[in-house]
């Protein structure tokens, strides 16, 4: 690939480098054969035009994920959609519209984009590395076509003027922070010139930005492979260990190492919830826990929303909370058939919670019992036997349950959802009039179950928290690359890249030395002309500065041809 010029480099700025020795225009010789085709395809892929196309494709391809429900975020909505759209649904499913961000077409777009990026940025990096070691380009013969210009006169000899200008340029504005790289030239016949360049940081920033994007992608992918995530519901006074079996759901990356599961234990001591008394909106959730990491003493810690707990290389997040009514069920024989807290799922702002109690371990040949219903933390009677919750705090809790008996279906081998009752082999208890029986139970109360099934006691109302635990070893890398990309971007957009030239020639007939200057910037740069003026003024002194029009104070946009981003770029070969 000799003579290959990375895309995006040819603009007015590089055009000057080749001002005096124009580089041969890249000629595309149609080569025949497989390698020729490969080379052609590669050039197409790494061209700016294709990068542009792929970027727009990426933007478009990301949209369907907000239009259709996504399996990764809300599988239940996808299921509903499939039921509602029996013809369209399966087709969308086949085409990956319910998993856009892991679909083949989405992956293809961003992978191609990143291949293009690497193919585009690596050659640019090579060019830049050579450029960083290079010298400022020679002073052009004519200054006429440059966007920033200035002139003045000086009484000193040309080479004195030029040395002074070089010193001004080398000094920079901040101490110990040289801005310009400076060369002086003896152009013969008493004429001297200085050429200066600054702003390698701009291109460096651009390259850092693009390469950091690659780093970001690699880190994210690595994290995906090594991560694990577990979810556990923990009732007040209870705990769990960081082991796969202790989680309600557990998910792991393809390269997950079991050794990354540090066996710490966590106990929920207390949970505080505060709500706004008027709007009933949540104001604060704090879980007080005891953390025991292997080899160290138990420690009291807190977990809050926005403040996860670091434990064993993983982070523990407070994702939800609710009530777990502590229930004891005794069977007909008076034996305890079930005892313990049952997490109910909050359905609304006032924590109307839905739950299921399954009682399989009954004695004798009594049927199994299933209870399904609601917990109202603060119950208010709104009609005859009609209650609703009016406050999320447990001021006057009430359990409202209906009763089923028969076979719970727990021994069929099919995993069951703990929050659902499989009613296919159960019958609901009804009263003498054939109406379903509803139990209303307050804490401390014991009620008889219908159909002589036994009794139920509502012992108390502990809270529970839903904890989400995640370990992603790539996290620091993701952060570092993201910040590097940000810094690189800022540098590449805001660091000015400028070239300045100043020429001092002997005046006619022993007149004062004639000084001319010109400047060029990469891209758009409002500061170019003021910079040139500053250098001229510093070089020629305040007396001669009268010659220099003060463009900084009364500048209007049309008096400064700031930059020529478009037309000049278009006109370069």
């Amino acid at each position, binding site marked *: 690939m000799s003579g290959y010029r990375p895309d995006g480099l040819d603009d007015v700025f590089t055009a000057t480098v080749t001002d005096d020795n124009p580089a041969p225009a890249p000629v595309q010789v149609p080569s025949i054969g497989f390698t020729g085709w490969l080379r052609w395809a590669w050039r197409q892929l790494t061209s*700016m035009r294709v990068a*542009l196309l792929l970027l727009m494709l990426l933007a478009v391809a990301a949209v369907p*994920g907000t239009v259709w429900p996504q399996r990764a975020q809300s599988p239940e909505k996808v299921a509903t959609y499939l039921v509602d759209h029996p013809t369209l649904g399966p087709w969308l499913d086949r085409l990956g519209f319910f998993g856009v961000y892991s679909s083949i077409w989405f992956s293809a777009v961003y992978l191609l984009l990143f291949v293009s990026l690497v193919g585009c940025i690596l050659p640019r990096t090579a060019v830049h590395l050579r450029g960083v070691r290079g010298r400022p380009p020679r002073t052009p013969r004519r200054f006429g076509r440059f966007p920033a210009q200035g002139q003045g006169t000086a009484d000193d000899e040309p080479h004195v003027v030029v040395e002074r200008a070089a010193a001004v340029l080398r000094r920079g504005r901040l101490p110990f922070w040289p801005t310009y790289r400076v060369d002086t030239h003896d152009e013969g016949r008493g004429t001297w010139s200085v050429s200066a360049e600054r702003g390698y940081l701009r291109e460096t920033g651009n390259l850092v930005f693009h390469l950091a994007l690659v780093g970001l992608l690699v880190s994210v992918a690595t994290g995906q492979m090594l991560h694990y995530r577990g979810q556990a519901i923990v009732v007040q006074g209870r705990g769990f260990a960081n082991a796969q079996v202790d989680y309600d759901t557990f998910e792991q990356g393809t390269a997950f190492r079991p050794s990354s599961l540090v066996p710490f234990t966590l106990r929920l001591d207390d949970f505080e919830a505060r709500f*706004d008394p008027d709007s009933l909106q949540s104001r604060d959730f704090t879980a007080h826990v005891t953390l025991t990491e292997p080899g160290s003493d138990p420690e009291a810690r807190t977990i809050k929303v926005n403040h996860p707990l670091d434990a064993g290389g993983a982070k523990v997040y407070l*994702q939800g909370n609710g009530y777990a009514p502590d229930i004891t069920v005794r069977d007909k024989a008076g034996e305890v058939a079930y005892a313990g807290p049952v997490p109910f799922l909050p359905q609304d702002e006032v924590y109307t919670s839905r739950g299921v109690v399954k009682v399989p371990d009954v004695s004798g040949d009594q049927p199994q019992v299933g209870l399904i219903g609601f917990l109202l933390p603060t119950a208010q009677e709104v009609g005859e036997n009609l209650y609703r919750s009016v406050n999320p705090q447990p001021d006057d809790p009430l359990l409202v349950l209906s009763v089923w008996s028969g076979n719970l279906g727990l021994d069929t081998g099919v995993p069951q959802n703990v929050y659902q009752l499989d009613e296919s082999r159960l019958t609901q208890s009804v009263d003498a009039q054939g109406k379903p029986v509803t139990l209303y139970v307050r804490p401390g109360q014991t009620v008889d179950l219908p159909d002589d099934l036994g009794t139920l006691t509502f012992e108390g109302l502990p809270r529970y928290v839903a904890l989400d635990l995640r370990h992603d070893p790539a996290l620091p890398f993701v*952060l570092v690359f993201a910040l590097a990309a940000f810094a690189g971007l800022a540098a590449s957009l805001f660091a000015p890249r400028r070239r300045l030239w100043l020429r001092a020639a002997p005046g006619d007939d022993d007149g004062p030395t004639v000084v001319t200057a010109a400047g060029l910037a990469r891209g758009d740069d409002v500061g170019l002309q003021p910079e040139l003026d500053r250098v001229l003024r510093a070089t020629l002194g305040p007396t001669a500065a009268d010659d220099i029009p003060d463009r900084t104070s009364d500048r209007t946009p049309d008096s400064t041809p*700031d930059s020529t*981003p*478009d*037309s000049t770029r278009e006109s370069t070969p």
Partner: protein
Amino acid sequence: MNTGDLSTLLVWGAMTALTIALVAYAVDLAAIAERAQRKVPAKATASAGAAGRTATAVATPPGGTAAVGDGRSLRAEGIARTTTYVGIVLLLGAVVTRGLAAGRWPTANMYEFTVVGVLVATMVLAIVQRRRVIAFVGVLVLGIAVLALALGLLVFFVQADAVQPALQSYWLVLHVGVAITATGVFTVAFAASVLQVLQDVREVGPRPVGEAARRTDGLRRWVTGPRFGWLQQVPSARELEAQAFRLNAIGFVLWTFTLIGGAIWAEHAWGRYWGWDPKEVGTFVAWVVYAAYLHARTTRGWSGRKAAYFVFVGYAVVLANFSVVNLFVTGKHSYSGL
């Protein structure tokens, strides 16, 4: 009256001030247009081909208007500038009192987002117009600003209140604050880009008849016609493109920060830095479109007017990400408070 009500009152006041500024800019624009229309006949012969224009010059400038060379109304510009400043001061007061009333940083729901966003947009406008007034940019930005405030007060409004635990974080200041600022900057940049395209169409003038030319002929004839004579007062397309780029570049860097900051916050609050939540997707799409804009600027054959089209798309995505995603799509970012 409590502090929250005072804040709302200040927003109404600011909207009034900005509406006056909008009218003043419109008067300025009209004065320029009128002046330009009277000059059109001379120009029409110069640039032949743009025929079909009937210069219906209506004389009599508005009474007492101090008109300068290109028809600008200095008095209208003065009023516009002053009332914009008044609007900014009132909005600042509104934001501060709102924060006091809620007892937190006031960027937690759509109403507050709108008020702070308008504040940023008008401040950027004031800065951009400091040296040279471009009436059109004033009209466009203030038009969007007044509309946004009206929507905010009438549709998005919620009482000042504390926020749910998920929003209790300094990232509410950083992430949301920067997102709003970026939106404000993008708004002015968008106005500059619109103007750039209009000016470009006008500068390029009638093209040789061809398929592509005929398709856009309507727009071109309209823009080169007397109705858009005020474009003469406006800087050249190239300068506008430079201005738009500067603003878009600032907006883009801020947007990048929004994206990264949002990911860091999501990692703290939700236990994952990226989850393809609709809001995240919207932010990402807008970011990619603006990245495409920056690429287009440096791609041969795509710079100039074509690159500006990316700004239109990008700004539309930013607005949709704020409005449509908040109101009609369910996701984790349900902070509209509605």
